[in-house]
């Protein structure tokens, strides 16, 4: 008989196991493992070495699948494309805030 000595992240953070994650995401575990190895998915690892996937990872996987299906982005380029898209989004966010500050300070808005 084995007793779990540590709590898995799944209990505390609403994470999913690899099997459940693959089921939700509609992909083969092999693809998930490949994406984890490439650093595109970043699941939590518990003390037993099992992977746990949060909600943000579900969205990340969906984006990977859209990029692969829609643009044919290959595994090697995925990491770069995703990093660049995130950076563009962050810059656009920053630009929105700074332009609103600037116009807010000078002209009538």
């Amino acid at each position, binding site marked *: 008989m084995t007793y779990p000595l540590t709590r898995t992240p799944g209990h505390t953070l609403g994470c999913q196991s690899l099997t459940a994650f693959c089921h939700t*995401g*509609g*992909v*083969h575990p092999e*693809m998930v493992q490949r994406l984890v190895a490439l650093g595109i998915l970043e699941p939590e690892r518990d003390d037993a070495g099992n992977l746990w996937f949060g909600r943000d990872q*579900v*969205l990340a996987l*969906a*984006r990977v*699948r*859209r*990029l*692969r*299906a*829609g*643009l*044919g982005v290959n595994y090697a380029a995925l990491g770069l494309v995703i990093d660049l*898209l995130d950076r563009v989004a962050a810059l656009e966010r920053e630009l*929105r*805030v700074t*332009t*609103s*500050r600037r116009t*807010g*300070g000078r*002209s*009538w*808005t």
Partner: protein
Amino acid sequence: MAPSRDFYETLGVSRDVSADDMQRAYRKLARTYHPDVNKDPAAEERFKDISEAYDVLSDPEQRRRYDAFGPDFRQVPPDMDRQTWARARAGAAAGGGGHARRGGGPAEHVYTRSGGFQDIDLEAMFGGMFGGRGGGRSGPIPGADQEAEIELPVEEAYAGGHRTVTLSGPDGSRTLDVRIPPGVTDGQRIRLSGQGGRGGDGATNGDLYLVVRLAPHPRYRVDGRDITVTLPLAPWEAALGASVAVDTPGGEGKVWVPPGTSSGRRLRLKGQGLPNPRGRPGDLYAEARIMVPPKLSDEERQMFEQLAAVSTFDPRRQP
């Protein structure tokens, strides 16, 4: 879906385009309108059209059939030639309705032979947006998040309210009733869960984010949650002090102008700026601007002259 749209036009190429050039045009458009690259809600529909057009035209057999039969090519049985199809269409049209299933003439011949070709569900055939390409054995893909801008007057950002937003969508434009929470700021995003890009085959939709833009206002200047409003003052109000009315988005307020106030002085009305659902509200600043009467009455002129003679005040004196 717009089935009447010309596939060549969608890809922006001529009808005699080579496969290479067409692929180049497709790749360029796909990069521009991919829902993960382009957050505009209209981009998704465009991307879908582009993908559909390329799916058909990149396959030589389907392209040949599209060239021969036009947008209805999927309804044409594989062994039909162009003339027979044209005759069948003409017959059906004369019979009063392009897709008549019953009735005499060549149309019946076509449809009965095709065994229900006209009933092909295009969505199923293409598997939604992404099913057609590269998806392989995997399941349906959730939709991407989208962004659109919404312009609000300052008063509405202050008080909140309801807005009707119209967006172009897959089935023409769709209208959304959006609740604006009180205290939204310029650049803030309002999330509409599940209103973004459509997921394929029952997968979850993405979210739609409405980015708030505050419309220019004749009186209010907004910086974050703080609002500045100009407070015109008569010279004697500014010199002697006065309690005057000031416009705020929440209605008229009172502000005490201390004696000796010059133009440019900012009087703070604490917490009278844009409200903050998660913390301290912004402040309202009344910025003093001293105005003089454009025309003086004789009595006013006399008194100003008297004041000029008596006063030693020189605003230009260097300290």
